[in-house]
């Protein structure tokens, strides 16, 4: 028989008028599972918690029920205090009799005391059936792996190396730099991309903590946080490395607008990337350039805004206008996207330079006129309601960034998710660089199109997130929580009754369940490092073989029985 000590907190008499504590104590003393009932004034004060702890030790109670205010108020204080005094988490239960009972039923004392009694009874039932989940610890390999050597990956690598961790970088191309290598100048400062990139490349080449694998291709990724094993080939040689965490900085690729605005069919219709390439070679001669925004973006197929194309167009338009005095530069747009204090000023600078902006509608895109080379562009000016004919010698299409072709493959290898377009997505709110898999971080344009300064910022942030895991020698599964505080438990399979139907494997949002082959059948196995105790597997299990010990079906059943 259980030996439960009950503490009833009066909250300094605050809830006395709604709940008759003496009556409650009398009723509770009749329960055979209750060894003692104490009425206290304020269980949230340290002195009272200590007193309660010593009382528990004296009476040798094996479970503690606290009836007080909820966790969101101060109910967490006695619970945490008792845990600190050495009482296990699953042996304590907190029942909310203030917000959930006394305050909400102040005008019905009879109902309130009945409800308080029922709630405490439910708590007693819960305590008698609550069990503790097992925990698991894994050792952490202190190396980091970064996939992609663009600005985000390089920033992450150099930050991690600065904190003293070994870093391996896998890069598909033969040199580090990513898309920055294809760009001449950066907005809004106008500095050379190479100036920004070179310090990072120097560090990658010279820092002995950083190993760079060019021309690499990943064939498999296995393991979980602390111990990932990655098989890959670099420059034709097969290789394998261990790492504690993985940072994904694979970036994105440029969308080629084949078929849009007669691109590929007519000369002098080029993309923003081609104009960058020209700028890298030297200056560019165009007297009447026309930039067309949102070529392939913000339409039905790609309804998102790529965020970098508007400032990039402003940059190149201003550069063309500055290098070719007397030129007329047009930007045809569907709303210029320049958020923030710096970029808005950039837009105003472009306006004051005499660059002309014409807003068009999605339904009436500009028409490219000309036979073998563009002669003029016809555009319906949505603001003034007139069709304008602009003479031009160059049309530049601003195309969005789209996910890499193999992002889905990489996501499947890692067990993380991509959004509806194929960018890697963070899987839960308020944790922007973390994914569904602990120890796998995303940064830069791999998660969403960003400019290089943002990519560097995110790379550094991801590195710092990674350090918080890498610096630990061992990680306990119970600390890998999605919510404040430790995990509430881990799902547990009853191997004898598990039929191996696989419902839980399909239902688990964290890919923690898998089927294991026994001699004659399959049974489900839960990977504690991945399990977050959401309970989806519990709900879909046809015969109750999957349980969370802290919230098992016996406990819920007993609570329901005693609810009224």
């Amino acid at each position: 028989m259980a030996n439960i000590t009950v503490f009833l907190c009066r909250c300094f008499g605050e809830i006395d008028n709604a709940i008759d504590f003496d009556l409650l104590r009398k009723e509770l003393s009749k329960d055979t599972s209750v060894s003692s009932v104490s009425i206290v004034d304020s269980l949230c004060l340290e002195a009272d918690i200590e007193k309660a702890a010593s009382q528990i030790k004296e009476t040798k109670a094996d479970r503690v029920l606290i009836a007080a205010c909820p966790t969101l108020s101060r109910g967490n204080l006695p619970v945490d205090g008792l845990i600190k005094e050495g009482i296990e988490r699953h042996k304590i239960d907190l029942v909310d009799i203030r917000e959930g009972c006394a305050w909400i039923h102040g005008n019905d004392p009879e109902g309130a005391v009945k409800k308080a009694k029922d709630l405490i009874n439910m708590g007693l039932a819960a305590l008698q059936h609550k069990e503790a989940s097992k925990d698991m610890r894994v050792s952490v390999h202190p190396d980091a792996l970064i996939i992609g050597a663009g600005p985000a990956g390089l920033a992450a690598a150099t930050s991690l190396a600065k904190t003293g961790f070994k870093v391996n970088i896998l890069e598909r191309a033969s040199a580090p730099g990513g898309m920055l290598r294809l760009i001449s100048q950066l907005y809004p400062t106008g500095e050379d991309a190479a100036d920004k990139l070179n310090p990072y490349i120097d560090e990658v080449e010279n820092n002995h903590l950083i190993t760079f694998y060019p021309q690499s291709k990943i064939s498999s990724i296995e393991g979980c946080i602390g111990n990932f094993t990655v098989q890959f080939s670099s420059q034709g040689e097969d290789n394998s490395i261990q790492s504690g965490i993985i940072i994904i900085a694979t970036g994105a690729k440029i969308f080629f607008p084949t078929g849009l605005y007669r691109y590929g069919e007519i000369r002098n219709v080029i993309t923003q990337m081609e104009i960058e390439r020209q700028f890298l070679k030297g200056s560019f001669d165009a007297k009447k350039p026309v930039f067309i925004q949102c070529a392939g973006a913000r339409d039905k197929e790609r309804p998102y805004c790529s965020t970098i194309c508007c400032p990039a167009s402003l940059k190149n338009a201003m550069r063309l206008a500055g290098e070719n005095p007397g030129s007329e530069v047009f930007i045809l747009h569907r709303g210029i996207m320049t958020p923030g204090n710096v970029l808005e000023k950039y837009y105003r600078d472009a306006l004051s330079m005499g660059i002309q902006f014409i807003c068009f509608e999605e339904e009436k895109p500009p028409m490219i006129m000309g036979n073998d080379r563009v002669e003029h562009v016809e555009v319906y000016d949505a603001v003034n309601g007139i069709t304008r004919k602009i003479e031009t010698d160059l049309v530049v299409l601003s195309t969005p960034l789209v996910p890499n072709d193999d992002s889905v493959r990489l996501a499947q290898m890692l067990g993380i998710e991509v959004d509806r377009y194929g960018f890697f997505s963070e899987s839960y709110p308020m944790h922007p660089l973390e994914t569904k898999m602990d120890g796998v971080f995303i940064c830069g344009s791999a998660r969403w199109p960003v400019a290089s300064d943002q990519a560097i910022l995110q790379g550094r942030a991801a590195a710092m997130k990674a350090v918080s895991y890498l610096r630990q020698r061992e990680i306990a599964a119970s600390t890998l929580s999605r919510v404040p505080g430790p995990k509430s438990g881990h799902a547990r399979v009853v191997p004898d009754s598990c039929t191996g139907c696989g419902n839980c494997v399909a239902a688990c949002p964290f890919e923690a369940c898998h089927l294991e082959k026994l001699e004659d059948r399959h049974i489900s196995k839960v990977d504690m490092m991945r399990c977050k105790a959401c309970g989806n597997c519990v709900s879909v299990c046809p015969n109750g073989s999957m349980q969370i010990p802290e919230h098992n079906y016996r406990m819920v059943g007993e609570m329901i029985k005693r609810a009224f």
Partner: protein
Amino acid sequence: MNQPRILIFACKWCGLIGADAAGKKRASLPARFRVIPVECAALVEPDAILRALAGGIDGVAVLGCHSGGCRYNNANHASIKRFELLKDLLDTTGIGGERLLLSFGTAHEYHQFEEIIENFFNELAALPPLDPWLSPFGVVS
């Protein structure tokens, strides 16, 4: 007047915050509901709901987070589908799907808690009381 009783499964991160807030503002609700806090709405077994109804509780409410706002990687999204199926089952067995209330809202929509529960009380009051004799007749094994 029928006096219905309600069992509420409230997700700790949204529904329970609503229940707390209702208490904090001293809302006045009938004392005939009980709240069982759960880590996520996905943890509520359909079986538990059936057990509650079979035991004579007139209505069960499941309060979870918005789809997309779940802390457990959209675990609650799966639970929505499950409970819709369960409603069908309740309809076909004659218990009535209206005895199961699903509500998904964020913590900052806590002011809705009072309204949701009051409406549910009124809806259930219009239904005949659910007697515990249901279970021996094999509605729930």
